[in-house]
C-alpha cells in the first residue's frame, strides 16, 4: 500500500514510464508463460508417442529374447544325456524309484554345460509334474530341488499342451535372489512329455539399465505394487511404486503422472506373471519437467534478455512521449499558476505553436475564466442583496426576542396572579368562616362578661378573650380585603389628590431620616376607587418602604398618566424606595398572606396581601420590581374612569363631618390606631401631636399648648388615667378623651371620672371626628355654662385601623 501511495504521488510522466515498463514486462511474461504451456503440451505429446514406440520396441525385444531363450532351451533339451536322465527318472519313478543323485547330477552337469553356451542366467529342469528336478544358475542354484513350479502357467503349458498358454511370450520366476524372466520349453521323448526346461534371464538393475539405454528413458521394474529394480536408484520409492500401480490400472497406454515435484510420462510393458500371479512390468519413464526445462531454460534467458530490452525501450519511449505530450501542459500550468499567484489575470497563454490538445485546453480555460468572472459579478450583486436582507432579518429577530421576553414576563405575571388568586380564594373562604366563629366567640364571651363580677379574675380573663377575638376579627378583615371580599365604596377621584391628602401623615410615619418625594402628572386622569382603601394601600406601601430603609433613603411616590395599547388610558401609582431590596424568592411570594420577612411579632404578613386585594378589587394591577441593595418599586395601574368625575357623590360624608383647628395630643402605644387616629383628625383640620406613651406625652406637653388629650387607657408602665392625673395637675383646662377597646365595666378599676369622654375601640373615623368635635363643643359649652358633660357612647365600627406591614 505504501508503494501504491508512493506511486500515486509521482508525476504523470513518471507514472507513464512505469506503466510502459510494467505493461511490457507483463506482456513478455505472459508470452513466455503461454510459450511454456505450449512447449509442455507439445513435449508431452512427443514423449507419449516416443514411449509408445519404445513400448512396441521393448515388447518386440522381449519376444525376440523369448525366442532366443526358447531356441537355447530346445538345444539343451535335445542333448541325449539330459533327455535320457529325465526319461530314466520317469521310468524309475514308476517302480518307486527316487530322484537319484546320479541322475540329478547328470542333469545339473548338462545344465551347467549349457549355461556356458547360451545367453541365460538360469536353467531349471522340471519333471512332468512341474517339480524342480535340477537347476543351474550363473550365480549358483537359485531354486530348491523339488520345489513346484506348477503355478507358472508357462510350465503347466509345457508339461501339458492342453493347458492354456501364457498370454505373453514369457513368464517371470521369483527366486530366492530375485526375479527372472523365463521361457519354458517342454521336454518330450517319443511324443511323451518328460518335463520342462525353464530358461531364464535375471531382471536386475543391469536389465533395467539396458532397457533404459534401449528406450532412452528411465526404467523401473515392478512386481505387483513393489519395485524390485530400476535404472535410477532414486526412483526406488514407495511413492513411485504406488503411482505406477495406479497408472497400471488405466491400461497399457502411456500416461502422465506426477512423481514428487516432477511430471513424468510413463508407459508399461508386461513381462508376465510370477508363480504367485503378481504381474511384472517394465516401466519406461520420461521426465516431462526435465525435458520441458531443457527446452525452456535457454528460451527463458533469451526472454529475460529481450524482455528487459523491451521494457527499457518501452520506458524510454514512454518518457519521450511523456515529455512531448506533458511539456506543453506543464508550461500551460506554470503560466496559469504564476497568474494565480500574482492575483491578477495575466495575458493569455500563447498556445498557437502547441499541440492540438493544449490549444483545446487553453481555449476551454479561457472560456472558463470568462465564465468565472461573470459568475463572480453575479455573486457580488447577490451578496449585497443578502446583506440588506440580513439587516432586515436581524431587526425582525431582535423584535421577536423583545416580544418573546415580554410574553415570558406576562406569563410569569399570569402565573403569579393565578397563584395569588388561588390563595385569595382559600383565604377568603377561611376568613368568612372565621368571622362567623369569632362573632360567636366574641358574642358569648361578652354575654358571659356581663354576668360576671367585673372585679373578679374571671372577668379579666374574659376580657382577654374579647380582646383576642377583636384581634382575630381584625385579621380576618384583612384577609377579606386581600381576597377582595370586602365591600368597597368606589368614587371617581384624582389619585394625586389622594396622595397629597395623605402626604403629611406619610412624612410623619416615615420619620425624618427619610426623604419623601411626591410628583404627579397634571392633569391626571381620574380613577374609580374607594378613597379610604387607596389611602390604606399607600400607607401600607410607605410603611414597608420605611422598614426597608433603616439606614436612610428616599421614598418616591409618583402618579402619572399612561396610554396603553388599547387607547384606553390608565393611571399608575408608583411607590419606590432605595432600600435593601428583595431577593427573587421573596419577590415571588411578597403578596402571599402571612408571608413576612419581619421578626416574629413585628408583622402579620397581611399588609401587602391587603394591598394586592384592594388593587385587584378596584380593577387594577400591581407589579413589584426589586433589586437587592438598590431598592424596590411597586407599580399600581388603575384604569382611568371614563365618566366625568363627580366629587360630591360620595365625598358628602367627609365634608359633613365636623372639623376643627384645635391642637390634639394622641397618646397611643398601638401604632396603627395612633396613625389612623392622627390621619382622621388631621383631615378634619386639627393640629395633631402624637406620643407613644405617657412620658412622651408629658414631654410634649411641656412645649406645646394642647386642647385635647386623646389617650389610651391601658398602656404599659403608665396608664392613661395616671397620665391624665399628672397632666391635669399642670393643665387643668385640657379636655381629656379616653379611648379603649375594653368594655365600660372593665374600666371601673381605673376610677374614671364619670364625666370623662370615652371612645370605644374600634371606632370609625366618623365616630372619632364627631366624638372629638362633640367633646370640644361640650367642653366649651361647659366652660361657658360651668357645667355639663356628656358621655358619648360609641359602638363598634366596621372599619378598623390599618396595620402597616
Amino acid at each position: 500500500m505504501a508503494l501504491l501511495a508512493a506511486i500515486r504521488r509521482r508525476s504523470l510522466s513518471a507514472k507513464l514510464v512505469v506503466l510502459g515498463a510494467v505493461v511490457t514486462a507483463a506482456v513478455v511474461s505472459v508470452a513466455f508463460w503461454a510459450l511454456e504451456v505450449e512447449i509442455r503440451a507439445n513435449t508431452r505429446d512427443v514423449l507419449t508417442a516416443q514411449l509408445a514406440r519404445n513400448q512396441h520396441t521393448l515388447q518386440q525385444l522381449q519376444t525376440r529374447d523369448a525366442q532366443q531363450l526358447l531356441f537355447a532351451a530346445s538345444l539343451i533339451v535335445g542333448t541325449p544325456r539330459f533327455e535320457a536322465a529325465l526319461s530314466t527318472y520317469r521310468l524309475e519313478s514308476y517302480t518307486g524309484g527316487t530322484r537319484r543323485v546320479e541322475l540329478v547330477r547328470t542333469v545339473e552337469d548338462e545344465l551347467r554345460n549349457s549355461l556356458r553356451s547360451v545367453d541365460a542366467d538360469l536353467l531349471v529342469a522340471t519333471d512332468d509334474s512341474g517339480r524342480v528336478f535340477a537347476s543351474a544358475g550363473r550365480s549358483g542354484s537359485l531354486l530348491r530341488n523339488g520345489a513346484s513350479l506348477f503355478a507358472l502357467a508357462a510350465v503347466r503349458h509345457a508339461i501339458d499342451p492342453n493347458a492354456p498358454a501364457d498370454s505373453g511370450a514369457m513368464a517371470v520366476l521369483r527366486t530366492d535372489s530375485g526375479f527372472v524372466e523365463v521361457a519354458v520349453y517342454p521336454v518330450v521323448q517319443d511324443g511323451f512329455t518328460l518335463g520342462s526346461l525353464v530358461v531364464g534371464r535375471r531382471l536386475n538393475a543391469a536389465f533395467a539399465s539396458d532397457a533404459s539405454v534401449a528406450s532412452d528413458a528411465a526404467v523401473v521394474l515392478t512386481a505387483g505394487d513393489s519395485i524390485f529394480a530400476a535404472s535410477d536408484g532414486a526412483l526406488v520409492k514407495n511413492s513411485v511404486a504406488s503411482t505406477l500401480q495406479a497408472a497400471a490400472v488405466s491400461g497399457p497406454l502411456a500416461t502422465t503422472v506426477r512423481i514428487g515435484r516432477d511430471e513424468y510420462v510413463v508407459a508399461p510393458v508386461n513381462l508376465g506373471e510370477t508363480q504367485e500371479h503378481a504381474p511384472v512390468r517394465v516401466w519406461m519413464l520420461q521426465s516431462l519437467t526435465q525435458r520441458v526445462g531443457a527446452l525452456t531454460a535457454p528460451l527463458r534467458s533469451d526472454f529475460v534478455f529481450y524482455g528487459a530490452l523491451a521494457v527499457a525501450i518501452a520506458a524510454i519511449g514512454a518518457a519521450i512521449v511523456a515529455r512531448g505530450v506533458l511539456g506543453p501542459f506543464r508550461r500551460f500550468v506554470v503560466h496559469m499558476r504564476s497568474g494565480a499567484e500574482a492575483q491578477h489575470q495575466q495575458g493569455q497563454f500563447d498556445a498557437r505553436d502547441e499541440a492540438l490538445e493544449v490549444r483545446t485546453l487553453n481555449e476551454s480555460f479561457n472560456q472558463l475564466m470568462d465564465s468565472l468572472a461573470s459568475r463572480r459579478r453575479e455573486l457580488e450583486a447577490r451578496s449585497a442583496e443578502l446583506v440588506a436582507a440580513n439587516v432586515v432579518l436581524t431587526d425582525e429577530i431582535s423584535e421577536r426576542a423583545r416580544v418573546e421576553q415580554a410574553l415570558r414576563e406576562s406569563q410569569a405575571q399570569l402565573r403569579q396572579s393565578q397563584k395569588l388568586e388561588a390563595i385569595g380564594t382559600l383565604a377568603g373562604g377561611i376568613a368568612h368562616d372565621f368571622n362567623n366563629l369569632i362573632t360567636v366567640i366574641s358574642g358569648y364571651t361578652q354575654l358571659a362578661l356581663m354576668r360576671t363580677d367585673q372585679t373578679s379574675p374571671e372577668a379579666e380573663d374574659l376580657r382577654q378573650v374579647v380582646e383576642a377575638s377583636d384581634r382575630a376579627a381584625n385579621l380576618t378583615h384583612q384577609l377579606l380585603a386581600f381576597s377582595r371580599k370586602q365591600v368597597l365604596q368606589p368614587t371617581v377621584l384624582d389619585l394625586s389628590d389622594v396622595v397629597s391628602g395623605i402626604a403629611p401623615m406619610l412624612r410623619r410615619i416615615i420619620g425624618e431620616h427619610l426623604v419623601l418625594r411626591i410628583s404627579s402628572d397634571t392633569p391626571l386622569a381620574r380613577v374609580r376607587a374607594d378613597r379610604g382603601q387607596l389611602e390604606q394601600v399607600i400607607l401600607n406601601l410607605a410603611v414597608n418602604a420605611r422598614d426597608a430603609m433603616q439606614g436612610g433613603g428616599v421614598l418616591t411616590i409618583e402618579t402619572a398618566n399612561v396610554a396603553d395599547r388599547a387607547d384606553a388610558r390608565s393611571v399608575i401609582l408608583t411607590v419606590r424606595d432605595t432600600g435593601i431590596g428583595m431577593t427573587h424568592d421573596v419577590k415571588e411570594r411578597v403578596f402571599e398572606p402571612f408571608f413576612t420577612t419581619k421578626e416574629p411579632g413585628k408583622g402579620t404578613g397581611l399588609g401587602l396581601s391587603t394591598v394586592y386585594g384592594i388593587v385587584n378589587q378596584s380593577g387594577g394591577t400591581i407589579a413589584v420590581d426589586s433589586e437587592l441593595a438598590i431598592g424596590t418599586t411597586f407599580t399600581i395601574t388603575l384604569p382611568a374612569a371614563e365618566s366625568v368625575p363627580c366629587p360630591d357623590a360620595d365625598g358628602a360624608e367627609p365634608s359633613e363631618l365636623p372639623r376643627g383647628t384645635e391642637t390634639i395630643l394622641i397618646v397611643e402605644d398601638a401604632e396603627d390606631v395612633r396613625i389612623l387616629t392622627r390621619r382622621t383628625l388631621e383631615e378634619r383640620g386639627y393640629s395633631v401631636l402624637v406620643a407613644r406613651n405617657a412620658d412622651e406625652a408629658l414631654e410634649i406637653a411641656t412645649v406645646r399648648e394642647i386642647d385635647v388629650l386623646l389617650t389610651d387607657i391601658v398602656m404599659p408602665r403608665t396608664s392613661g388615667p395616671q397620665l391624665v392625673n399628672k397632666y391635669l395637675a399642670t393643665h387643668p383646662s385640657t379636655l381629656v378623651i379616653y379611648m379603649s377597646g375594653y368594655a365600660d365595666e372593665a374600666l371601673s378599676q381605673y376610677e374614671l371620672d364619670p364625666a370623662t369622654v370615652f371612645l370605644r375601640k374600634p371606632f370609625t373615623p366618623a365616630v372619632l371626628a364627631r366624638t372629638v368635635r362633640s367633646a370640644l363643643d361640650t367642653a366649651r359649652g361647659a366652660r361657658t355654662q360651668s357645667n355639663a358633660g356628656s358621655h358619648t357612647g360609641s359602638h363598634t365600627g366596621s372599619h378598623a385601623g390599618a396595620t402597616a406591614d
Partner: protein
Amino acid sequence: MGSTPPPPPPPSEQMAAELHNVVIYVDGDSTKLPADHELIDARRRGVMSQRGERFTPHVVPVVVGATVEFPNDDDVYHNVFSLSGAAGPQGFDLGRYPKGASRSITFTRSGTVQVFCHIHSDMSGVVLVLPNPFFASPDDAHHFAIDAVPEGTYTVVGWHDRIKPVTRRVHVTAGQTTTVNFNIPLPQGGDR
C-alpha cells in the same frame, strides 16, 4: 501253464504296435520260482538292434544275468548308454560304433534299464531285467502265454514303459491254465 487268450478286441495298428512293448511277467525271485535251466538259459540272451535310428525291439525282456547284444544295423554311428540304476549307479556307456559292429552288456541285477543313443537323442529302448524266466511278450494274436509256472499264488505284472506297472494276484493250480485279464491304459501321444 497254459493260457487261453480271451477273444481280444480288434486292435488298431497303433495299438498293435504298442502291444508289442507290453510285457507280462510273474513277480518273484528264483527262490520262489524254480525254473529249469533250459528255460533260464534261453532267456539269458537278448538282442536289441539299432536300425532306422531306433532300438529294435523297443523292449527286450531278459532274466538276470543275461547278456544283450546291441548290433548297429544302420549306416551311421550309434551309441548305447544308460543312466538307469539297474545297470549300476553310473549306468553304462558302450561307446560309439559303426555299422556292422555290435556291443553287448550283461545285466547282473534285475530292473528296468533304459538305453539311449548318445548321437540320436530320440532313440530309446528298454531292457527289462527280470528275476525269473516266467514272462511273456505277445504272440501274433496279441496273447501273452507263460508256461510251466509252478502251483502257487503270484503277483502278475503288466508292464509298459509309459505307465506304472499294473499288477494282479493270481493263483496258479498245477495242470491248469489260469487266465488273467489285463487292462493296460496305453498313454496317448505316443508316436514311435
